[in-house]
């Protein structure tokens, strides 16, 4: 929408030409093909074999047709894991990160000085610190006997990670990933014309009305982009493994479930079949969001 009225200039201003352009694009495309597209396709094939990490089937995998898929789809453990993943994505990303990120961006938008800088710094640090470190930080925070949280909340003896693993990883992921939403919404909010907000205020609109009538229509595209990205990232997030381990089925979201099946139990073929189903779900989620985005574009041009 912030398209400038620049004249339509010709393509290829440097005179690169198709051949040289292909040449300089080739290394990137090759690496992407080999280490991204190929593994994705290979997952397709693997899912139809009984390939194992060790033992006889490791050397002589053979096709088992669609058995893996039918087994997975019928497996209650898979259903359970899928449901947990859904809870995890909706709870920590769609609701948690997105709402909190927007709230921070909105409240800090006009703020200045140390408070804004401090909050932003902490939120960003939570995002960029290595995952192994933050997993330990949270283990320390929530430890049953010596954890700071129990000391503060007077809940000594509560082993949060053991007793409420889902709640823990959801709160943890909100803490970990809110920064992205905050950054994106801050950038989006700078694009809301201050004169429109001033006009709304002049007519006596309250905060909520200002948000609903001026801000949201402006940043709807940003909201969808944000939700798409954080949903996908959260859906595929492996960090909870570092917090709760892989064995506890009460918090075994899909990435952990795949890891446990494929690499821990060594059933590679089965793992690949789950991975493929996961890819498909990802794709569906992405397409739904993109569809919504396009509808919004259509509305705008109409």
């Amino acid at each position, binding site marked *: 929408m912030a398209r400038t009225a*620049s004249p339509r200039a010709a*393509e290829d201003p*440097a*005179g*690169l*030409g198709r051949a040289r*352009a292909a040449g*300089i694009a080739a*290394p990137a495309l090759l*690496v*992407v093909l*080999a*280490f*991204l*597209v*190929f*593994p*994705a396709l*290979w*997952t397709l094939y693997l899912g139809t074999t009984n390939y194992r990490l060790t033992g006889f089937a490791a050397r002589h995998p053979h096709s088992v047709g669609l058995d893996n898929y039918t087994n997975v789809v019928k497996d209650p453990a898979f259903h359970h894991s899928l449901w947990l993943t859904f809870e995890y994505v909706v709870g920590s990303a769609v609701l948690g990160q997105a709402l909190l990120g927007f709230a*921070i961006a909105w*409240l800090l938008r006009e703020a200045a*000085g140390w408070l804004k800088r401090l*909050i932003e*710094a*902490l939120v960003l640090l*939570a995002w*960029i*610190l*290595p*995952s*192994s470190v933050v997993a*330990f*930080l949270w283990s*320390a*925070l929530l430890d049953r*006997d*010596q954890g*700071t949280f129990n*000391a503060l909340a007077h809940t000594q003896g509560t082993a949060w990670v053991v007793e409420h693993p889902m709640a823990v990883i959801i709160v943890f992921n909100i*803490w970990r990933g809110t920064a992205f939403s905050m950054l*994106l919404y801050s*950038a*989006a909010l700078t694009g809301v014309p201050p004169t429109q907000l001033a006009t709304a205020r002049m007519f006596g609109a309250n905060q909520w009305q200002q948000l609903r009538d001026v801000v949201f229509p402006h940043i709807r595209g*940003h909201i969808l*982009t944000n939700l798409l*990205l954080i949903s*996908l*990232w959260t*859906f*595929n*997030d*492996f960090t909870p493994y570092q917090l709760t381990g892989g064995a506890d089925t009460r918090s075994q979201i899909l*990435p952990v479930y795949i*890891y446990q099946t*494929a*690499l821990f139990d060594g059933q*590679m073929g089965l793992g690949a079949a789950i991975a493929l189903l996961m*890819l498909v779900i*990802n794709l569906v989620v992405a397409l739904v969001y993109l569809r919504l985005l396009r509808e919004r574009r259509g509305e705008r041009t109409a």
Partner: protein
Amino acid sequence: MRDTSAAAAAASDPGAVVRKIGRYTFLSVLLGFFALPMLWLASAPFNAHPTLNVSISSFTLHNFSVLLKDPYALPSLWNSLLLAGGTALLTVGFAAAAAYALSRVRVPGRNGILYALLLLSSIVTGTAAMVPLFQLAFKLHLIDSRLGVILVFTGGLLPAAIFILKDFTDNTPKSYEESARVFGASPFQIIRHIVLPMIRPGLATVTVWAVVNVWGNFLIPYILVRNPDKYPASVVLYTFYTEGGQPNLDLISAFSLLYSIPVIVLYLFVSHRYGFRFHGGIKR
């Protein structure tokens, strides 16, 4: 802070006072929520007997001297640096070239392809492809190879890197390149003299982003590296256990801090130099 007229309004309007109190309460809770987990990182490394509690009962640097003697601790930081540096270099170099070509030369369906790759990367780099990635690395004899880890990372980061850099080049007026061209510059001179310097903020963004991604990633080296000598810091952090099988908090706390410092420094540098925000990089 709001201007003084807002303060004056607040004085006369009780609703505004309530809102203001609510606002600062929320911000305080927020501050606590984000700060609390990090306190341990600041205190435990300097504690003679670190527990999982936050306290500095006796200040010491002893934990760090123990760490220096550990055979894997410092080398693992070096390994992390190699992986992060190598990946950043490859990613930025390849992505810049590809982004420029895609931005300036008409390829049918270029945006569709880019979106597809972007989606694929946000899916595959997570966990869905860990089985085939492991196999691929195995077949190519890239298990235990730094190059293998770097290539896997690069493949995963490239789509987004290309996307970001293409956005930067798309927003650069073409008349600069045309002007240079009329003065007789060759395509590669134009890229070197004009294009690269102009998208420097984009290159910096992608570099930082790649480094942070690789530095903190646990899963990929965890799967692809078997030799402890080549473990990066993210994996080594999970190897500090006492003989009794308990986490060795002396080492873990000190090492966590050492391992985090580069990221913190990078953050301070970036936010000081450029301001840590999105500019232009994210399309709606």
